[in-house]
């Protein structure tokens, strides 16, 4: 009996059912999920911004900023070498400096500028902030927030400039009513090439700012850009039309109307932004009856047709995305991406009995977000398109992200990434997309410039350390 007892005791000690084993095991999971930090509420992953990595740890560390679009919350996920993020939320004084007040929405857009902060500066669009206006359509606000690194190397926030109601720093506010100023922000070099500028979209136009000079330029084609404010504005800044100063692509989806994409360019003589050419519209004959979503998402694509200029991908939910080669003449897309309904058993496209063509999955809201991520590490970024309300398994409207090779001939996705943690319907998996430059020991993407796909959802953020659908890579699971 005594031996039996000792044997059982030894067995119990030997087995060592340590619950923490699951955490350490799942730390090696190919997907890292960041749930909502305190005070975030929902909409955790709508605003994602890949920050510059620490200077002393390029490639092996990464930083991802995310914010709540409806709460006054901001955080940075600081990935160390093994890919486990340390989430640091902005303190209340940082947020109060930004002028965020309860009940006035959160941060809906963000962009990173190089400097003047030690870790750069982030431009935060807060379109629902009233400021001194107090009523009516909120003017919105754009805040400039410097990032610093603390003694331990963790990123921290340092409030530097506030741009509000037309004024910048020192209590001066931007006074020109814009309406939802900050609907979208982007980094660009529009008026000059010496430093990064912030391109800001509001209900009525586009503005270019920088930290030191304030407003550099605004658009003169305001009327063309006037659209109902309840749809997502998109913004892409690249050398679409010429080298040197960059051009601005602004997507204006129109609810119940026809969405368009405007190309703006800085006129140094007039010192203003001017619309260039005709807006990009829904191309015929591949136009979708539901064309209001055209322009919901934009992403500039490196030159593909050899003219040295950037191309443009336009998301046109509910079911399409288009690749336009610059200079976008005649709105003829180079490629059309769409999501079709797949047979749940065979996995093959279901055909429309009337047309014999693959049946479009119009309920999936394909094209709500587009981004470029080099998920396979081959040096060429892949196109990532969100089907925001695609069904995943038995979960309705969970969301999917589809990956396409831009340099290929086909428009068939090379991978379909499901919400790996579907807990309910309408999770909006992929409502935020980011390209995280990260090549840690856990990153499976090959190549020296590996990038990770980051997909945000309302409940949290998914970081994919493995190229979806790739073969097993021993590096992924090598023990440190």
């Amino acid at each position, binding site marked *: 009996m005594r031996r039996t*007892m000792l044997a059982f*005791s030894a067995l119990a000690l030997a087995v060592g059912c340590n*619950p923490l084993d699951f955490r350490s095991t*799942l730390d090696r999971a190919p997907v890292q999920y960041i749930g909502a930090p305190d005070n975030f509420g929902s909409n955790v992953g709508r605003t994602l911004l890949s920050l510059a990595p620490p200077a002393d740890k390029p490639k092996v560390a990464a930083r991802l900023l995310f914010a709540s679009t409806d709460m006054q919350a901001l955080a940075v996920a600081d990935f160390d070498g093994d890919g486990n993020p340390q989430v640091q939320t902005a303190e209340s004084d940082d947020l109060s400096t930004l002028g965020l007040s309860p009940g006035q929405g959160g941060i809906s857009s963000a962009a990173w500028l190089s400097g003047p902060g030690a870790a750069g500066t982030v431009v935060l669009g807060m379109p629902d902030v009233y400021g001194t206006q107090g009523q009516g359509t909120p003017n919105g606000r754009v805040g400039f927030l410097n990032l610093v690194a603390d003694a331990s190397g963790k990123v921290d926030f340092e409030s530097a400039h506030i741009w509000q109601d037309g004024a910048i720093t020192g209590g001066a506010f931007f006074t020109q009513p814009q309406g939802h100023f900050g609907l979208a922000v982007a980094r660009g070099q529009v008026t000059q090439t010496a430093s990064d500028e912030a391109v800001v979209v509001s209900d009525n136009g586009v503005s270019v700012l920088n930290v030191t000079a304030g407003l550099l330029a605004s658009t003169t084609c305001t009327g063309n850009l006037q659209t109902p404010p309840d749809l997502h504005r998109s913004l892409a800044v690249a050398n679409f039309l010429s080298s040197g100063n960059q051009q601005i692509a602004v997507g204006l989806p129109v609810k119940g109307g026809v969405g368009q994409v405007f190309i703006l360019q800085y006129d140094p003589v007039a010192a203003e932004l001017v619309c260039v050419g005709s807006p990009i519209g829904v191309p015929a004959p591949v136009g979708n009856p539901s064309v209001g979503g055209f322009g919901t998402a934009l992403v500039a694509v490196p030159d593909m047709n050899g003219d040295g200029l950037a191309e443009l991908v336009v998301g046109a939910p509910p079911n399409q995305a288009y690749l336009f080669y610059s200079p976008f003449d005649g709105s003829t897309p180079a490629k059309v991406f769409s999501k079709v309904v797949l047979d749940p058993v065979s996995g093959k496209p279901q055909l429309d009995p009337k047309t014999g063509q693959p049946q479009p999955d119009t309920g999936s809201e394909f094209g709500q977000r587009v981004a470029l991520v080099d998920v396979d590490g081959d040096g060429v970024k892949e196109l990532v398109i969100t089907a925001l309300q695609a069904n995943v398994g038995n979960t309705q409207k969970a969301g999917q992200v589809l990956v396409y090779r831009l340099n290929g001939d086909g428009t068939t996705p090379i991978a379909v990434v499901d919400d790996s943690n579907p807990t309910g319907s309408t999770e909006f998996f992929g409502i935020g997309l980011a390209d995280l430059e990260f090549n840690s020991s856990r990153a499976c993407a090959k190549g020296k410039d590996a990038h990770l796909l980051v997909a945000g959802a309302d409940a949290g953020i998914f970081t994919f350390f493995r190229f979806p659908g*790739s073969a097993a890579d021993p590096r992924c699971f090598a023990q440190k």
Partner: protein
Amino acid sequence: MKRLLKLALSMAFCLGAVAGAPEPVARAQEQAAGDADLQAAKAQFEEAQTLYLKEQWDDAAEKFMSAYDKKPFSSFLFNAAVAFEKAKKLDRAVDLFQRYLDKDPQARDAADVKTRIDSLKALLAPPPPAAKKTDKAPAPAAVLPTIATKGLVIIESKPTGASIFLDDKSKGTFATTPWQGSLEPKPVKLIFEAQGFKSEEREITPRTDKVVEIYIALSEQNFLGWIEVIANVPGADVFIDRQDIGAIGKTPYTGHLKPGKHVLWVARPGYQTSQQEITVAPGTATTHTINLDKVDYAVLRAGGPQSQGARLMVDGALACTMPCEHQLKPGEHHLAVQKEGTEPYAGNLVANRADETTLDMQFSPKPPRTKAWTYAVLSALSFGTGIYLGVKGLDIKDQINNDIANPAKLINNKDSRKRTGEWYYVGADVALGVGVVTGLLSLWNFLESGPPSTATVKNVNLAGPEPKRLSLVPFGLPDGAGLAAAGRF
């Protein structure tokens, strides 16, 4: 009368006892007690005597006859005849006197009785006719001497046929036993003699109104020898010829023995038993001095209530099954007593030569193992549950690891199975912890001992002048146990 009989019988018993032959006495008692006719005859006789003194002659005569009917002693006929004579029933008196003579023709008063018969007959005869016709006056009736009833003396002896002398032997043999008859109511010494037996004397005073019974058991001449047994150890048991019937006495012993060879044992615990053959000559007195030596071992008597079946271990070896007796070599010994279901006893004992040690066990029952088994079952269940949960958790972990290794799977670090697996592991840890705790409790209860069995050890050195008492009592301490000794030396 009964008291007299008892007295007589007691005297007879004493004589018999002196003669070393109690068997005849017992037989006489049986005879006396068992002869109902004799007792009835005595009663009738004494009643008749009473009536006679009251001069109720007829009734007295009838009673005498009734006594005769019970026991046909001739004296009863004589007395009846006297009573009838007193009652003027001369013819009946004559008849009974004649029957008396017929019954006991050798009676010492036979001549007198015959003369009296004649006299009575003369009184009964009618006067001759000539006398009636003559003028001579009739002859006066003969005057009879006074007569009285006589008592009854019954004499018996063992052996029968002993000669009876009265007062002294110069008068010659009076009678031989058995004899019954009447003696004059005055003190008389009876002398009994039989060949090969010692003569005996007895003084009695016969009475006319009583029956006197005498039983004499004559002892053989020079029948016993007298011995005295003395030992260096007082109080030793003395056995003669047989030990199985028990000792006849203790040293110093004196007593009579039949002549011849006998085996004499003298024994006392703690000493070597002495055995020797002795010869007893009739009528001699011999003294036998015995020297007893101490035994070269000690005796351990182990017992006590509920000791049946317990095993006595001496110096690690099985000595005996209790209750029992075991011989110990002088020296220190380790004692242990084991009995199923009770706590063991252990102690040390120093044994000396001739020690007699009594080990009186008081067994302490082992505590019940119910709690231990309950804990053991709980432990087994807990371990089973813990292993089951652990295996389930391990399965989940394996599944997660497999999914991590599977390129087609993209699980995240917040996989829902994590929580399930954690609960399984927590449950397993709790169950295994409970299993370990209950297992240890079970082990503790299995190994738990009750109060130790105790023993009262009494030690007596049989060869010593004073008894010694030594008690060894185990006792428990928080961190051990000890052995307490208390004694009187």
